[in-house]
């Protein structure tokens, strides 16, 4: 039996095409991926991301606990600030990428990928136990609906439903206020490359907020968007996806996440392995790949050496980019092949298609 979010009936009523996404029955599209993608880029899109997991950390050792589990430096956060970070194994392999929201001293909200909720909670709980951190660590994933409002009219749409002054909220900051009169976390974060918000509120308050947002955004052309558009939007701005760019065989330095890997801070899980990696030289690099011939690179397609034809890497994500009107892809190449313009070959159904390393992100918003 697939799990359903609180918004399941809203999706069904709106004609969402429901699929099994990591055990969740969620809409891959409503009107069509191209239309939804473009709506988010040009206006505003609404996403049900309630399948994401939420953990709460409270108590005197909260900061120490999170700083020991995660690669980024939690101690730099001020109250009401969010941080992108990585959870590693001891060998530096990635368990998940996630967001930490600092509510106040000793109180944090941690948001993780849907498919990794149990794995992350078990792994962090093990550390919590072993090191005897004095803080509570709770998995509250089933208690929250999460709705993302993304696009240039996101602020104007959401502002109609909350007294929190959104114009004063900076990127990667959040407030605990109310939306439609219900208590909510309102964060200026997202996974689309557009301005936008992610709202967390009590599970059963989701449907009313979803409908109210569709109504509030009507004048801007708001539309519900499915997982298909969520994937193409994130890929255009090179946001990595766990299971594609990130996995236990890849470390954050290889994935281009050195900027959230603070080797200068005190000890954390994976630090020693990552320091060794950095000293010995990183073996593979995540790059943007542009085809010079016809086709669309897809996850799992081989990257070949342009002369020897030997397999040297792999495409991790690839699609036709709606905002660009051309195929785009990300993939891993060996160290030394990461420079923009480096020639590569991508194997597409036994055809060898010339390609090259291209600058990323593929899309940047213009406002």
């Amino acid at each position, binding site marked *: 039996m697939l799990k359903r979010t609180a918004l399941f009936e809203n999706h069904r009523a709106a004609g969402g095409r429901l699929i099994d996404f990591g055990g969740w029955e969620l809409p891959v599209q409503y009107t069509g*991926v191209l239309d939804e993608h473009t709506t988010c880029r040009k206006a505003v899109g609404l996403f049900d991301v309630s399948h994401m997991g939420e953990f709460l950390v409270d108590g005197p050792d909260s900061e120490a606990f999170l700083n020991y589990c995660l690669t980024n430096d939690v101690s730099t956060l001020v109250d009401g600030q969010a941080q992108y970070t990585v959870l590693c194994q001891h060998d530096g392999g990635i368990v998940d990428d996630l967001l930490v929201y600092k509510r106040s001293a000793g109180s944090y909200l941690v948001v993780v990928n849907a498919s990794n909720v149990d794995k992350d909670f078990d792994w962090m709980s093990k550390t919590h136990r072993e090191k005897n951190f004095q803080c509570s660590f709770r998995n509250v994933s089933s208690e929250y609906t999460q709705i993302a409002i993304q696009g240039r009219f996101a602020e104007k749409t959401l502002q109609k439903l909350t007294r929190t002054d959104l114009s004063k909220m900076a990127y990667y900051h959040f407030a605990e206020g109310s939306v439609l009169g219900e208590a909510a976390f309102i964060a200026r974060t997202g996974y689309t490359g557009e301005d936008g918000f992610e709202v967390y509120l009590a599970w059963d308050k989701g449907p009313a907020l979803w409908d109210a947002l569709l109504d509030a955004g009507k004048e801007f052309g708001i539309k519900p968007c499915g997982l298909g558009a969520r994937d193409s939007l994130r890929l255009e701005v090179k946001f990595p996806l766990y299971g594609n760019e990130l996995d236990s065989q890849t470390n954050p330095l290889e994935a281009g996440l050195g900027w959230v890997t603070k080797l200068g801070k005190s000890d954390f899980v994976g630090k020693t392995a990552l320091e060794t990696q950095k000293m010995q030289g990183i073996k593979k690099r995540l790059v943007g790949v542009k085809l010079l011939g016809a086709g669309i690179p897809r996850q799992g397609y081989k990257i070949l050496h342009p002369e020897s034809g030997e397999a040297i890497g792999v495409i991790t994500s690839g699609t*036709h980019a709606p905002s660009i009107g051309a195929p785009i892809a990300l993939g891993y190449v060996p160290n030394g092949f990461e420079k923009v313009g480096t020639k590569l070959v991508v194997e597409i159904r036994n055809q060898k298609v010339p390609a090259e390393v291209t600058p990323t992100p593929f899309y940047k918003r213009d406002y």
Partner: protein
Amino acid sequence: MSYPSTLRYTKDHEWAKLDGNVVTVGITHHAQDALGDIVFVELPAVGRSLKKGETFGVVESIKAVSDLYSPLSGKVVESNEPLAGETSLLNSSPHDKAWIIKVEISSPAEFNELMTADQYTAFIESLK
């Protein structure tokens, strides 16, 4: 969407239309609907020989890749090259403007083995 009775259909969701000894081939409404917005099509070279059931090309949407299977044996005499630059026709006009190839068939009997519109409609109902 109705399935024209002038066409015959396959379980791989291709259609075929006979005109003399040449068959025009495309994908069905059901196929395009399942795929979503089609953004890429790979066509075979003119002159290529195809066996019934052989892969002759690919259509791709943003999310999915789908092989095209020849409904009949024969030789490709025409590929709809302009379609590559206007793949949205595969969504908007799958049974008409978005024909994919024309094949000079080697066995007319194969055509009669394909499903009629009624049979195909029943077949897709059975998939639900």
